[in-house]
């Protein structure tokens, strides 16, 4: 490949607030059209906006968490353009004094170890969401203003991303970070996380760098489409350049929409009038002054973020990068859960196995948050510790856990009622071995005659012995006593 892809992301995130950015009506998704409006969100004549303090605080938290520098004096501006989903025909946004600039996001490397690294951010700013337009019948579009005025945070990256895979990873990491921060639910399906990508390519030709015209890709509705669309667009731009030779100097920025079913980008209708947003200070809002004490207070409220947590899980608990990532990327509540189990057992790897295999499986099957998982981290740690102390074998542990999940009863009660105490009494196990041999005479013959591999025969007999004890025998003890018995019989 003789070109480099230059990618910058522009992400819009709805903040999780009870009320809209500038008025008290709700922010729910999926309501019947136009049932979540009030005079302010309809842009009615005479109405005025008043800033939602929580929205500002959440945005501030994000910017601080992303290492951005906080503007001590920030103000609001009007971005003027006519569109039916924008009731006032101006969007209250931030222009020359956004509340934060800079910052960065650490992108984790790909599974094969390639890619990843730091992506710088240009700015984070706050604005209001628009309503929704749907194409109706009879030459009309329907306007639904339920979404109009929901607090929206815009995060713009520098064009520092170089592969479609990293673009996807960057967006995923951003989502994870925002979810850890609790500032947004980031559901792409519901539109609470939306991403546009600015893409062009730098072609190496005879030692010269040639940049193609920049394309803004819209309509990226999933993480996969971010990756696919950028890949497609890079190839398309290369072919286009081979055909017409146009560079960034010859053509203005173009907007193209991604069509997921077709797997292509298509030119979106050119704007009828050149965009001239005529920004000016919003006279209905007052500026915000953020002092150091405020920043410090918000900083103190920020917990450990995914990138740091992965690192710690690897260094403190000795987990593989893979395991650390699985636990972290499920979300903060899962990572917290694991953290608690790991700390209470000291058996970090074992705790990771239990959480990944036994807890997450059920959580996923039942589609519940881990907070609703019936067995808390202390109870799971207790169970794991019992296995560690050989009070239960692993299979018993699993069964007990299953009953704890189903009944919600305490571990002791289940062990008691189910008779799950592990059998470690030698005479009982020896009796079970003898019974197993007696009912399977062929096994001993096979072993003596060398017809089957000794390990296979031993394995079969071990299973029979476990069966005789109702699965309760200490597996280690069964192994050593069986070995001894067979040695005695075959010598």
């Amino acid at each position, binding site marked *: 490949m003789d070109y480099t892809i230059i990618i910058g992301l522009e992400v819009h995130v709805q903040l999780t607030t009870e009320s809209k950015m500038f008025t008290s009506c709700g922010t729910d998704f999926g309501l019947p059209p136009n049932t979540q409006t009030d005079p302010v969100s309809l842009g009615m*004549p*005479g109405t*005025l906006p008043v800033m939602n303090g929580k929205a500002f605080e959440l945005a501030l938290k994000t910017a601080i968490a992303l290492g951005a520098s906080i503007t001590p004096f920030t103000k609001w501006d009007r971005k003027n353009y006519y569109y*039916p989903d924008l009731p006032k025909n*101006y969007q209250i946004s931030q222009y020359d004094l956004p509340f934060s600039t800079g910052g960065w996001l650490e992108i984790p490397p790909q599974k094969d170890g390639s890619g990843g690294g730091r992506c710088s951010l240009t700015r984070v700013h706050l604005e209001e969401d628009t309503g929704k337009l749907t194409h109706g019948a009879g030459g009309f579009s329907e306007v639904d203003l339920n979404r109009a005025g929901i607090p929206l945070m815009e995060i713009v990256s520098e064009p520092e991303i170089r592969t479609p895979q990293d673009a996807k990873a960057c967006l995923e990491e951003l989502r994870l970070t925002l979810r850890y921060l609790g500032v947004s639910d980031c559901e792409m399906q519901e539109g609470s996380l939306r991403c546009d990508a600015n893409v062009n390519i730098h072609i190496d030709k005879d030692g010269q760098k040639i940049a193609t015209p920049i394309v803004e890709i819209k309509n990226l509705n999933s993480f996969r489409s971010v990756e696919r669309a950028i890949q497609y667009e890079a190839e398309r731009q290369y072919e286009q350049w081979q055909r017409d030779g146009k560079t960034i100097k010859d053509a203005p920025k173009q907007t193209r929409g991604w069509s997921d079913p077709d797997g292509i980008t298509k030119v979106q209708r050119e704007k*009828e009038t050149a965009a*001239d947003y005529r920004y*000016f200070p919003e*006279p209905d809002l*007052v500026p915000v002054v953020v002092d150091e004490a405020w920043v410090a207070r918000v900083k103190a409220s920020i917990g450990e973020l995914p990138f740091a947590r992965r690192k710690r899980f690897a260094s403190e608990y000795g987990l593989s990068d893979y395991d650390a990532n699985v636990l972290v990327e499920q979300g903060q509540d899962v990572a917290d859960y694991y953290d608690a189990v790991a700390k209470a057992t000291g058996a970090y790897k074992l705790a990771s196995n239990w959480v990944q295999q036994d807890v997450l499986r059920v959580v996923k099957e039942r589609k519940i948050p881990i907070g609703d998982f019936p067995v808390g981290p202390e109870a799971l740690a207790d169970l794991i510790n019992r296995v560690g102390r050989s009070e239960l074998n692993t299979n018993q542990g699993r069964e007990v856990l299953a009953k704890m999940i189903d009944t919600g009863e305490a571990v002791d009660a289940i062990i008691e009622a189910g008779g799950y105490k592990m059998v470690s009494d030698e005479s009982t196990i020896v009796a079970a071995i003898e019974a197993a041999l007696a009912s399977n005479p062929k096994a001993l013959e096979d072993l003596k005659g060398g017809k089957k591999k000794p390990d296979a025969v031993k394995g079969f007999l071990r299973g029979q012995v476990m069966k005789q004890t109702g699965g309760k025998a200490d597996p280690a003890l069964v192994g050593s006593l069986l070995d001894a018995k067979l040695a005695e019989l075959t010598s």
Partner: protein
Amino acid sequence: MDPTRSTAVTLLAEMNSGAISAEEVTRAYLDRIDRLEGRIKAFLHRDADASLEKAREIDALRRAGGPVGELAGVPIAIKDLLCTRGVPTTCASKMLATFRPPYDATVIERINAAGAISIGKTNMDEFAMGSSTENSAFGPSKNPWDEERIPGGSSGGSAAAVAADFAPISLGSDTGGSIRQPAALCGIVGLKPTYERVSRYGLIAFASSLDQIGPFSHDLADTALLLKIIAGKDPRDATSVDTPVPDYPKTLDTPPESLRIGLVREFFGDGLDPEVDAAIREAVRVYEAAGATVREVSLPHSKYGAPAYYLVAPAECSSNLARYDGTIFGHRAENFDPISPAEAELPVLIRMMMASRAEGFGPEVKRRIMLGTFALSAGYADQYYNQALKVRRLIRNDFDTAFKDVDILVGPTTPTAAFKFGEKTADPLAMYLSDIYTITTNLAGIPGLSIPCGLTKSGLPIGLQLMAPAFAEEKLLRTARVFEKATDWHTKRPGLV
């Protein structure tokens, strides 16, 4: 007694003593309106039954001995850019001819809670853009002193309503002089409070950083009372200020401790009518006789007030009025077929918006939207809009400097008395200059007051303007009261019978 020759304060005394009922008062005003409104055209919308109904409620409250509000039973006229729930609110524009807001403006809530009786919504220049009410889409109001002359604007209907005794008090709004100028031309008192002394929630915006609601009345006692009721912090207006609201009526009659008056030199230049000039100088002598020290002061950037204003206000209006595009509310054109080859290129949605706005707005509104759009547009914003904001700072600094040496600034409210219909309609710029003395206070955000101070030989009212530092309304009213007590201009009524 004839209640329509009264003031709010005297009516309240009569009603509280039981001498007259709110229903009788309201009926008297309604009868007078019925008789004379055809000549004055102060109103765009009235609902006599609703007014009487409210009056009867107030009477019942009074009879029951229950607490009644501070304006209980007082009729009030309301500029038709203040939103009234379920009641037409048109801004005198075809655009909003059928608009009924689903909510009340904060000032409307406050006067309702005080027991005032809305007597109707008053005429104005469309979207408050103008100085004569000639820009009303529904025809102009007449000056009760001379029906061939304009009542001033943009709050011309509210001023005419009080001058014609259709209501003892009314509410207007002032973006560049729209209360003070019509008050002066109609011979009544008009106050533009400090910016954000009164909540703007529910005031249909013209220029948000300049608009301010204020009272009209015959005398300062009524001004003080109405201001006290409408002023104060409103959680729905982020820019409203929570500075405490003084008890203006209580202190009104106490002369100010300090009476240092500054005469604004720049307000006495070319274009000032000699009769107006003489009346203002006579007013100054009244103050001197009352013990004031009067000196001339300079506001050196005054002449830049109008040009700065005609950039800032149109810029904000171009954005504030963008919402009227025929989509969510307001007028939508029936036919938006292309009228030119260029239009044929445009999507139907844009043609709908363009046609709706072309039909819905009058020429002055279009002119200001165009001017403001231009002033904010790429490549021009620095030279025009941003330069105007800097000049605005210089104008504010002028006032700050002046108020170091004087308590109150005075000058004429308008360069001339009321002019005739059509006199300035052909030349927008000439019309703009009729606000030349009032504009700078809006840019600076300070309060300004116009009180009657004389009549021309042909019997037209002249207004004296007083200006005070931000939030010094109390001092402003008390200083004006010194003049009111020493003269009887505020008792003069037009011979409208």
